[in-house]
């Protein structure tokens, strides 16, 4: 796990990745509690890109049974999910 992935910067890194790599709209700003699914920011393919990023950045593996909307609702939820995995 990289240093930058610890603590509050986890939210920052994920937010930056989604805003710049997955959405890529000039001036787009994303809050950590913005619903990612309802707003259409995350779909099947952008979720794949996000999971690849999370696995590479935070050294976790997301198994199929944990690929549920409940774990990817918002950036805050994603971070809580990642922390729970890192804590195991």
């Amino acid at each position, binding site marked *: 796990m990289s240093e930058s992935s610890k603590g509050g910067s986890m939210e920052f890194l994920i937010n930056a990745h989604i805003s710049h790599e997955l959405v890529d709209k000039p001036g787009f700003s994303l809050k950590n509690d913005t619903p990612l699914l309802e707003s259409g920011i995350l*779909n099947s393919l952008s979720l794949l*890109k996000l999971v690849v990023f999370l696995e590479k950045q935070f050294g976790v593996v997301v198994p*199929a049974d944990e*690929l549920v909307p409940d774990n990817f609702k918002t950036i805050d939820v994603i971070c809580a999910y990642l922390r729970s995995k890192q804590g195991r």
Partner: protein
Amino acid sequence: MRFGFLRAEFIVYHFIIVPLVAFLPAYFAYGVAIRRGDFRCWLDKSSREEITYVLERVLGGQLSPEERTRVVRDFFRLRSCETVDAMRLAGSGRSLARLVKMRGLEHIEAALAAGKGAILCSAHFGSVNCSFSLLGSLGFPVTLVARWSYEDDHSFPILRFFDRLERNKPVVHHLDHPNIRRGNFGVAVEAANVLRRDELIVILLDHIVTAADRAQPVEIDFLNGQASMLPGVITIAQITGAPVLISFMRRAADWRHQVLEISPPMPVEGDTVTAFRRCLAVVDAAIRRDPAHWRPWKLSHLVKMGLLPAEGTRFPVQSEEESIRV
């Protein structure tokens, strides 16, 4: 009355005649199938006219009226033969496998040897589901990304039951892995996980995009029109590094033998839509070469793909499960 008779004929053929004749010598089993296809073509006037109409609308002058009539007849014959194919997959699948010549298996072997899995693409073309099952019977680890019509909530329970019996059970018989259901929240990640295990993902490129797919379709040139398609397969290939191969199973003129052809890897570098367009051009060419092999020559499918308008036709746009059964 007529609709009930068509349905009764369908059930008698699929669940009585085919189980009785499928394991008899192939010339007899497929001989029965093509005669049933001719009978069904005569009996099902509405489908016959609808297929003729959409062929004319989509392919235009590519087919003369005589060729169109032959394609429609062959369409019914092929669907009847495909039911025999599915039945011959029972057990080890050898009854069907000995009638199928496979070309290009080395491309799958080379892809798996490289350790990144492979994405095998095809279309609703001929006995496509049986072809995947045959690969499974050879020991290739195959996972389908698909949505079966019996899974749709709107289909009648009896149709769901027959669909499961006729389509799903035989064709997934030789696949060790459960399908990945198209439209699942994490379908692309699940597919990528299969590829990471150095296995095969199979997917049909010409499926209808629905709201459940949760993705933005793009307009692609296809069959003289613009079809709404999802190029996600290319994105998955680019992210995972898995090669994309294209396969088609074609029936020979004797109606018994088939050739399963698997292409070398398609180029997927660069722009996603351009790479997808290249793959779809291969599908387009295959359909133009053997139009009767393509199953979706029905108004409902082509309207949903965006190739034909729903208005201005004398045929009702039927639901999916009504439109495919012949």
